[in-house]
């Protein structure tokens, strides 16, 4: 048989490239292997592109490929604009979070020296917990600061860099020099010295460098200290100790577990060399909450994350200990998905009507479920004419959509402001567990918050607040709860408090202390009756204020806590698809493979319309074998497996079935299952396999 056919059948290319470890890709010469697809693609793009942009397009035209270039570009630009705004906010938050630890560590590094530490190595122990990424942020900023002030630099060492002492030293020295002078500087440094050439791991080199640069602090940061070999670490530290009079080392240890555990792994003699201070980095959770709050509740936000996305984001964060960066990357991906795949996203750019692919876009808008709901509501209200126009007149629809979009975006903003109001109120009313803003947002986004028990309790407790707390609350709410009524209430409260400042905090009539229970004996029966205790005039007035505030709150809550899914055009400004996000960041590869093998036709859309549920020879060989494997016990006899496998082919194509061909299929299937690690050789019996994976576990 010809080798070409064989190679094609096996999916082997004729080049030898597949056997090379690593090589630089060169596109094949345009022969038969060039394929039609890429060239077709180029043809399409050339017809569209050649008029103006030499720059390549990043987005694909949507709406069945009919979207015009301008609106594609608009989508991309809007994405860039919106996301860069959000990203800046995230960066600010991260810097703010780190700022505390950074200043502490920086001042520690500056202030300590071997002299202050009784001749020991100054050591900063930084526990990071699960927030692993924070340390690298911290270190790079520390490095920047130290280099800026020409005090020294930070060398980051990972456990992978330290297989043995020589290599570790060499890495430290090289990293120190390249950090400031670059790679060329290092080479020059090695060669341009007087006297005999030193070996790469000679600390004399570092000494030399420190003297030349006038380095005052050389911070050596071990990012994952626990992963270092304790013996190596001991050697390294004792070596540093002996060079401490010449090289100003400061050691920074990143610790994921706890200082005690880390210390326990080191010999005492080694611990005795260190003298230091413990720093704690804030847990990732708080930081993530803050990022989320800023992203969603910021008044400048135009695109919101829906309930499903929010739950997915927080699930991932808690399940996988994600760092704040990873969290923000997921949010970024949500933004990316929205603008990449949703043609309506172009509406967020406030486009002029000319730049749109008019009729297609109108069609898309009219197909929205929210449009339908909106029209139904309009019909109920009786504005049939308007509905007709929306349905039939493209011009009118294009004119109207931005208005509705703006209005509804405003309502989203209001909603999130209200969520913040609720959050602040809860700070004062909830005593034990604090509901965080992400929980509240999830409820609000699903439209459940306005009827939730949390709110009821909140309002009930708010009534009983005393005047001091209420005052505090009102101060906090200022700027968030914007209404003239709120200002009036606050004004009134102020004046009231001024009149009776000496008598301590006022209590409202709803407070438990201001009701009294009377016990009277009437006709030999005890009657309990509650009644208002006699309360002062100020208190009555205060109660009045509280009533007004509560009424205001309730109106505000019911007004603004809408269900976002009811808003017209929410598809454009609310991203709520669980799936690209979940599968992209928390994949289930094992499930995917099991599914592909157990039900191959989920993937292979069969052109013949036989939907086969049973094992059949029409399926890929590995899938057949896997299904047989699923039916077997913990120990599998290969011979019987082979017989069963052959049986599948034998029964269906008895006439054209070559058992050696089937055998070769069996071989490839077996080797694949082995590569997946689901079977291994068993020593219990001859020609038996041990099963090592169970489906669905």
């Amino acid at each position, binding site marked *: 048989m010809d080798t070409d056919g064989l190679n094609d059948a096996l999916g082997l290319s004729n080049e030898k490239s597949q056997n090379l470890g690593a090589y630089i890709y060169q596109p094949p010469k345009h022969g038969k292997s060039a394929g039609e*697809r890429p060239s077709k693609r180029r043809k399409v793009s050339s017809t569209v592109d050649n008029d103006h942009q030499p720059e390549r397009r990043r987005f694909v035209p949507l709406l069945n490929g009919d979207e015009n270039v301008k609106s594609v570009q608009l989508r991309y630009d809007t994405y860039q604009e919106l996301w860069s705004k959000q990203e800046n906010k995230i960066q600010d938050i991260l810097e703010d979070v780190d700022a505390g630890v950074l200043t502490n560590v920086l001042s520690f590094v500056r202030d300590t020296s071997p002299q202050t530490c009784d001749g020991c190595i100054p050591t900063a122990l930084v526990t990071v917990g699960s927030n692993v990424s924070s340390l690298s942020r911290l270190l790079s900023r520390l490095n920047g600061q130290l280099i800026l002030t020409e005090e020294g630099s930070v060398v980051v060492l990972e456990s992978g860099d330290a297989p043995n002492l020589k290599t570790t030293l060499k890495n430290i020295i090289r990293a120190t020099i390249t950090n400031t002078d670059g790679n060329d500087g290092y080479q020059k440094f090695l060669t341009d010295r007087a006297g005999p050439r030193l070996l790469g791991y000679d600390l004399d080199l570092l000494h030399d460098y420190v003297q030349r640069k006038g380095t005052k602090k050389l911070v050596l940061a071990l990012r994952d200290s626990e992963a270092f070999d304790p013996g190596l670490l001991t050697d390294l530290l004792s070596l540093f100790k002996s060079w401490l009079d010449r090289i100003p080392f400061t050691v920074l240890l990143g610790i994921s577990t706890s200082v005690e555990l880390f210390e326990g792994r080191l010999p005492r003699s080694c611990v005795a060399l260190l003298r230091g201070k413990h720093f704690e980095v804030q847990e990732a959770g708080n930081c993530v909450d803050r990022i989320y709050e800023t992203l969603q509740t910021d008044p400048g936000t135009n695109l919101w994350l829906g309930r499903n996305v929010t739950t997915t984001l927080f699930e991932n964060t808690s399940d996988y200990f994600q760092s704040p960066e990873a969290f923000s990357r997921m949010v970024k991906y949500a933004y*990316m998905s929205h603008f990449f795949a949703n043609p309506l996203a172009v509406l967020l750019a406030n486009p002029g009507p000319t730049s749109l692919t008019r009729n297609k876009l109108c069609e898309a808008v009219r197909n929205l479920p929210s449009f339908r709901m909106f029209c139904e509501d309009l019909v109920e209200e009786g504005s049939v004419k308007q509905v007709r126009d929306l349905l039939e007149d493209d011009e009118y629809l294009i004119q109207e959509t931005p208005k509705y979009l703006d209005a509804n975006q405003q309502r989203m903003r209001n909603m999130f402001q209200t969520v913040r109001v609720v959050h602040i109120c809860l700070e004062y009313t909830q005593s034990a567990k604090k509901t965080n803003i992400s929980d509240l947002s999830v409820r609000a986004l699903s439209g459940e918050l306005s009827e939730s028990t949390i709110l009821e309790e909140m309002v009930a407790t708010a009534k009983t607040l005393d005047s001091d707390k209420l005052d505090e609350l009102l101060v906090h709410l200022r700027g968030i709860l914007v209404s003239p009524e709120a200002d009036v209430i606050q004004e009134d409260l102020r004046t009231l408090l001024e009149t009776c400042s000496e008598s301590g905090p006022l209590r409202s009539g709803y407070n438990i202390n201001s009701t009294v229970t009377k016990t009277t004996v009437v006709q030999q029966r005890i009657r309990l009756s509650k009644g208002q205790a006699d309360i002062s005039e100020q208190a009555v007035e205060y109660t009045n204020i509280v009533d007004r505030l509560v009424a205001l709150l309730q109106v505000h809550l019911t007004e603004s806590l809408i269900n976002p899914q009811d808003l017209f055009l929410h598809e454009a400004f609310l991203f709520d698809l669980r799936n690209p996000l979940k599968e992209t960041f928390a994949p289930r590869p094992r499930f995917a493979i099991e599914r592909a093998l157990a039900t191959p036709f989920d993937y292979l859309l069969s052109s013949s319309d036989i939907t086969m549920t049973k094992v059949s020879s029409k399926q890929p060989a590995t899938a057949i074998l896997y299904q047989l494997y699923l039916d077997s016990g913990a120990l599998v006899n290969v011979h019987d497996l082979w017989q069963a496998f052959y049986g599948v082919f034998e029964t269906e194509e008895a006439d054209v079935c070559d058992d050696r061909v089937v055998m070769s299929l069996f071989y490839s299937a077996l080797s694949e299952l082995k590569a997946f690690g689901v079977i291994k*050789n068993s020593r219990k019996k001859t020609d038996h396999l041990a099963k090592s994976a169970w489906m669905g576990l």
Partner: protein
Amino acid sequence: MKRKLSDAGDQPPVSTPKRRRTALEQSNGALNGLAPNALPNGDASYEVPPSERGQSTPKKTNGISATPLQQSGLKTPTQKSKARGLFATPTKPKSAVAATPSRVKNADRSARKKSARVLFEQDEDAAWDGSERLAEEILHGDEPGTEKAGQSLAESIEPEGAEEAPEKGVKQPKRRAGRPKGARNKRSPTPEGELPAHERYFFQNRAGPVKTSNATLNKVPLLTHEEYFEKLGQYEDPCKEEKEYLQSLHHRSFPQWAFEFDEGFNICLYGYGSKRKLMDEFAEWSYNYCSSATTTPIIVMVNGYTPGISIRSIFATIVTAVMGDDAPSKLGAQPTEVLELLQSALKSREDPVTVLINSIDAPPLRRAANQALLARLAATPRIRLLVTADTPNFPVMWDISLRDQLNFVFHDCTTFLPFSAEADVVEEVNALLGRKGRRVGGKDGVGFVLKSLPENARNLYRLLLTELITLLDDGHQSDDEGAAEGGGRAGDETGIEFRLLYQKATEEFVASSEMMFRTLLKEFHDHQMITSRMDASGMEILGVPLSRDEMEGVLEDLVLG
């Protein structure tokens, strides 16, 4: 087991070997009739229905050769009795059904005692041979007989478990001593009802012996590399169109991937099937997509499955790709050095560098240290990493900090394409089946290597083979059970002690010093023609990874050639 040696006089009637079965029953009857006192419960044991007896008939394939018997006739029965002593420990038959077989067994046992006696007293009247063979047969009949009884027991309880043991045309090897079978150990691979996955796990892993058939692949000729490829080429894939359609679906995501790259993500593709072709296509697509008049994009392909690939070589390739002729001639031995060089070189670059890694979870790259280095590569600015992962559990390679550095987005790219370049299928399967020796290509391969070796080496190999075959022959006599069980790979277990072989080699003037001897062996080692292991006492045992037949073939060629 004790054997009574009295009653030397009674002889079973002579039977012709052709009519073994009837002769057997006759002899049983005769024994019973003549010596009832020799039976523990002699009176009851003979109402055995013929059908039951039929089941315990030994198979014809256990053909007994009379020749070794005559040489060591005394030895065999004692050996057997030991083996049976283990086997017959009557711990298991507890159910009512077991009553009949046990009675049968008792009857058999009495017959066996007689036969053993016959064999013992053989030297007295060695001329008689018919009874010998019969006695032999009864002794052997014991094993398959009890197994059959056990099996029929199992069958009556769980027909579905028994049917998974197809026996057609396959020699049923004799069971090794010691595994009792019974209702207690009843076991069927598919439990009744729909069990959740974890329940099924425990069901299948519960303690006790597993019930699988004893069929082996000895009778099935295995594939060689050539045959595998030839036959696979003849196979016509019924799902070809569907697979192509699937591929085209993945194709449509290329712009999306490019966008993800632009936004600073790295990509990891997973799912069943080889994704090498997809990678190639993506490389070509992005080459065309990114190339402009002024620059050609840099794309580095890495095949992680290549045996012996090192991280350093990957980094070095990227460095050469980035720096071109400016790359220093000496890159440094440590991968970190090369990586740092690369990072500093990338600082001055605007354009991104795309690195495509096939099978990042392949064994050569799987080590934690390698993954950590790759993660650092991935975290380098302007490096775009597209990797594929084939195994189901690949995410366990990365802890959170690596995940953070890698910054992957994952896409399910199930292709259903065969792993033709990634895996050496025949080799993998041979390793899986414990036929490692196939690696050298079996008999032909060894013969080929031997031809290219000097005379001395060939002599040594001949010596080794001769010794091994002799050992095997001895083993066959002393323990024919074990040897027959080992079957095709007796060579794996049998071995000759290093010192012994050296002694023989010096005697035959093959090697004059141990140095030389070792040099010769090294050559064999390099070609994987010998195996070496330490036994319990720390002695080095040399073996040959060939089956007995193959050994004989090679030896024949050596002697004749």
